[in-house]
């Protein structure tokens, strides 16, 4: 069973989507490590190292995603898991913004996939399967 770390980054407490993601990925046959809401960058990385996860799936709903996710890839490299796959989704910036620009900003932070608001976890399942090789 492949392991995926999920959680909600920063000072963000939106717990509902997180619970649904856990439920959905578990049902889809993954080993889900859910570090929950209010998780720091370091919490994600530590959980990934401990469980030898291949994918970190970051949720950010509350709008501070851009501040919270800065340096994510660098920190992964520092921690020796530089080639882990990074996803981010939810409502990752403040307000309604042009998503192509937003995506660019997060790709530059080192994320592999960046999802616009309203992308439910079901819609990303295909990507996950593809990226984790099945």
């Amino acid at each position: 069973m492949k392991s995926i770390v999920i959680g909600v980054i920063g000072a963000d407490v939106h717990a509902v989507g997180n619970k649904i993601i856990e439920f959905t990925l578990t049902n889809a046959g993954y080993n889900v490590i859910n570090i929950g809401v209010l998780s720091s960058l370091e919490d994600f990385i530590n959980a990934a190292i401990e469980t030898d996860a291949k994918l970190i799936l970051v949720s950010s709903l509350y709008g501070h995603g851009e501040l919270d996710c800065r340096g994510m890839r660098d920190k992964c490299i520092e921690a020796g898991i530089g080639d882990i796959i990074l996803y981010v989704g939810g409502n990752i910036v403040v307000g309604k913004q042009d998503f192509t620009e937003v995506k660019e900003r997060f790709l530059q932070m080192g994320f592999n996939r960046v999802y616009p608001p309203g992308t439910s976890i079901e819609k990303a399942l295909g990507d996950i399967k593809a990226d984790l090789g099945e």
Partner: protein
Amino acid sequence: MELKNKKLTEAEFFEERKQVLSGWQTGSDPALDFSASLAYLRQIPEEKNFALKLIKAKNERITMIQPRAGVPIVDEHIKLLSFLQNAGADFLPSTIDSYTRQNRYLEAEKGIKESERLGRALLNGFPAVNHGVAGCKRVLEAVDLPLQARHGTPDARLLAEITHAAGWTSNEGGGISYNIPYAKSVPLDVSLRYWQYCDRLVGFYEEQGITLNREPFGPLTGTLVPPSISNAVGIIEALLAAEQGVKNISVGYGMGGNIIQDIAAIHALQNQTERYLEQFGHKDVVVTTVFHQWMGGFPADEAKAMALIAMSSTVATLSGTHKMITKTTHESIGIPTKEANGEAIKASKFVTKLLQRQFIVESGKLIFEREQIEREVDSLIKFVLEAGKGDLAQGVVKAFEQGLLDIPFAPSKYNLGKVFPARDNEGNIRILDFGNLGFTEDIKEFHRLKIKERAQNENREVSFKLTVDDVYSVSKGNLIGRPTKD
């Protein structure tokens, strides 16, 4: 010091205050001396006092309107609020950013600087503590309506001090409602104790002749919360606030989607809050209710979102609630623009004004649901008081520990998280899994029956899948998350 539901003495309060004000540099502003703040509050005109304007709504039997809004920079925030005032808001908010809510003032400061530098908002609200009394006064003086801090802060003591001293005449929150849905690891006795301070501060102002409003946050997680759970929490927070001397309390409720259950919930909330306050010996508290437009996941389509807003406004008006909190057509995407916020205010106000004083009061179903909610609330509060051996504050801590009180979908580890709600066949929010919730057996039987009826109707087992389907359904245009054919 052990937590007890007992008014803090003036000595205790003043002692604690020193420490509170030292929490961030803006706490040392001389405008925070009570002599200064009282003088400032005394000259605030009646129509800018939140508590008095709510009494007006109650006397006139109308539903007033308040949006949510907050941006990091003072001048931008003023522009935003003035715009919403012109759009027809009756009350103004200042939604506080998430760093401030976690008392992370250093990060908030960074957020302000970055937002200034980049010319776009990087914080999701107004960092009132960092802006201090002066910044908050600038906001108040630039508008003509009462102002309230709306946040989600377990420790809002400094925030309350600063905003009240700046003439913001209401504060939203409570020891339960601004902890369990908004934090992961703040112990409940700690947040309850912090909110006793916030309430005591309001009580102190009250003693000096200044009435401020306090509003427990009704919707909690905003997600399928059964009315009796949110009503019970609101009533408990009202009782805790009254004990500290608060005299003007608004209890809130987030729309569930079954119109009769929603109206019943507002009626029950008004009735029981007054009844319990009486019973606890608080005979001079003015109680009003607050109705939140749909608080769960919104549809992305703007026409549908607007429809949901106007439909919510219809239900709110029919319920006779005194204040309605509005959403916007951007809800599912991100913090709304001021234009989107203004449109929602106009639409909401149009409905509440058009339907003004059309109430739904009779009907057997309504009375049945109201009595059901009241029975459940009585059961919950009885269990809480027993757990606290008669002390309400102690009882709350124990009740959450044991899951006698349990809020669905809450992130806090001090919440047992064993309660799973689901809709019944008419769309009423019921409970599928009680965990250890403080319900008597007959109440549980009623819920089981109702959920079973729905599951049978859908030809499926009673399971957590019902809950999951119901979380999504409204954003997809259905109240009940029925299995789809495809």
